[in-house]
């Protein structure tokens, strides 16, 4: 199945629930530990400490470390610049939250358009396919430039002139194409027997799409959707290319140009990681839980 870790046909082999000795998930960070118990944990801790200590020692004692430290890990520069970067990260969060709401709605519309049955809906299906082809094929930064500078420059009456608005619209247009494909994969992963059953109960095609297919599809694609959230959170930095008022990345850029020191970029990176790493771990956890749930429940 095309949905990573999400929907798809039931697993070919099914494991009985509640067996602690069996590996539950293959992707988890701690998956190797439970097999060996306390001794395994100890070995893991010791080997982790040794590996990181050796790596750290090699880096710190390498010949050019003082220059690298001065340029990238400069404590004084970090203390000076980080508060300004952190406070402007709120703008990134704002762009993200606004864009995400519209992406979820618009992408679902696109996916449903593409899944509509019957020849009469062919134009809608075609439009949806063209849209995803177009926006998945164009670099997001190009769309940001195109709309962020292009639309305000036309000075059309009644059209917002803020580059921030149009940069966020660009993110929405671009990411919706990806998210629509995620939704579509979810919709196609719902077994045809589900639709057959719904139709045999007297539901119309549209009703079975609305009440049977989409609820199952959306639930299955939550982990890959979150993956796209992580990507979107990072790409809010693209707004900096057209909006003059600095968010976290542009603030870091301003500080770098002022002092010729790259530590501010590290500060911006930390702010992005503070949001994206928990999201990534949540995705892992959701995938694990979904797998456990389906294994526990057996077949559909």
């Amino acid at each position, binding site marked *: 199945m095309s949905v990573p870790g999400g929907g798809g046909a039931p697993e070919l082999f099914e494991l009985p629930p509640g067996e602690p000795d069996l590996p539950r998930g293959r992707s988890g960070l701690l998956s190797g530990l439970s097999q060996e118990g306390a001794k395994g944990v100890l070995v893991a801790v010791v080997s982790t400490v040794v590996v990181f200590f050796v790596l750290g020692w090699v880096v710190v004692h390498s010949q050019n470390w003082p220059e690298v430290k001065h340029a990238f890990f400069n404590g004084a520069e970090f203390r*000076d*610049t980080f*508060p*300004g970067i952190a406070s402007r990260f709120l703008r990134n969060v704002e762009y993200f939250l606004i864009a995400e709401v519209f992406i979820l709605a618009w992408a679902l519309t696109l996916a449903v358009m593409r899944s509509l049955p019957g020849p009469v809906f062919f134009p809608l299906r075609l439009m949806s396919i063209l849209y995803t082809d177009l926006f998945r094929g164009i670099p997001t930064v190009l769309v940001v430039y195109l709309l962020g*500078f292009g639309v*305000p*420059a036309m*000075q059309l009456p009644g059209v917002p*002139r*803020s*580059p921030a608005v149009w940069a966020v619209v660009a993110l929405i247009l671009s990411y919706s194409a990806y998210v629509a494909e995620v939704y579509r994969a979810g919709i196609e992963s719902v077994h045809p027997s589900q639709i057959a059953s719904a139709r045999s109960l007297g539901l119309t095609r549209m009703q079975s799409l609305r009440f049977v297919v989409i609820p199952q599809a959306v639930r299955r694609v939550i982990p890959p959707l979150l993956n796209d959230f992580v990507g979107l959170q990072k790409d809010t930095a693209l707004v900096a*290319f*057209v909006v*003059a*008022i*600095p968010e976290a990345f*542009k603030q870091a*850029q*301003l500080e770098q*140009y*002022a*002092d*010729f020191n790259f530590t501010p970029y590290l500060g911006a990176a930390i702010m992005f990681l503070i949001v994206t790493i928990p999201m990534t771990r949540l995705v892992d956890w959701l995938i694990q839980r979904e797998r456990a749930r389906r294994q526990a429940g057996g077949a559909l």
Partner: protein
Amino acid sequence: MRKVLVAVATSGLLLAACGKSSTTTGTTSPAAGGSTSAPPATAADCAKGVTSYVSSGVLTIGTDNPAYPPWYAGDNTAGTNWKINNPATGKGFESAVAYAVAGKLGFSPDQVQWVEVPFNQSFAPGPKSFDFDINQISYTPKRAEAVDFSESYYDVNPALVALKGTPITQATSLSDLKNFSLASQIGTTDYDYIVNVIQPNTEAGAYNSLADAVQALKSGNVDGIVVDLPTAFYITAVQIPNGVIVGQFPPAGGQQEYFAMAFAKGNPLVQCVNMALEELKSDGTLQSIQDRWLSSKVSVPVFSTS
């Protein structure tokens, strides 16, 4: 944070004089060590003693692309990567100054080659692809830690450009500007001027390029942009015909801002270029180039600091 920047800037300004003299002694010693102890009499003699050219026998000069008027003129971009103007025309203020300096250093016009260098890289630390860069780079003490600078070839003031008929055009003092949205190109002294001197109530905007800042003003996304005065003349004459120069700014902290050529740190050529500039100033060439290419005749009001 801002206070720290201002403190650094002012202490740097106080130290600027001694900083410059130490730079000169620093660049004298390698030249003196390489040849006999007698100091060179002319810029050309000085340049002959320099062995660190990017390509030997050629003077390699850097500037940003597009090469905007009035700094560069004469177009001639067909068949090259240059936009708006090819700096090799010898026309426009900086191109003319560059060729005049090259002449004093003993290079004929066809021994000069131009390389494209983005503005913010021209004064960043590290190895350089040019012997010197001439690109409206203002001397600042912070930049002088990363590259060496020549003496001034043009004293410059920042200026405010806005659209005709907008409220900001009524402003006559720095405090009048506080409630407007202002922007400039990222990494410029003009941006620093907004942040440190004007200190507007709306956060200052920073565009990645001058073209972006001009576009934003055209679209009405900012009330005004801060650029150097000669660039302001070009913008209002060509790029935004309904733009107007509201005024020019008094020097920050009483320290006259000036454009200087940038060199890789420790390049002994600085001293030779300074000699060349001195010769061009005393024989009147620099003034006549300035009279020809920069519209200094037009008077632009200066914002009061009250």
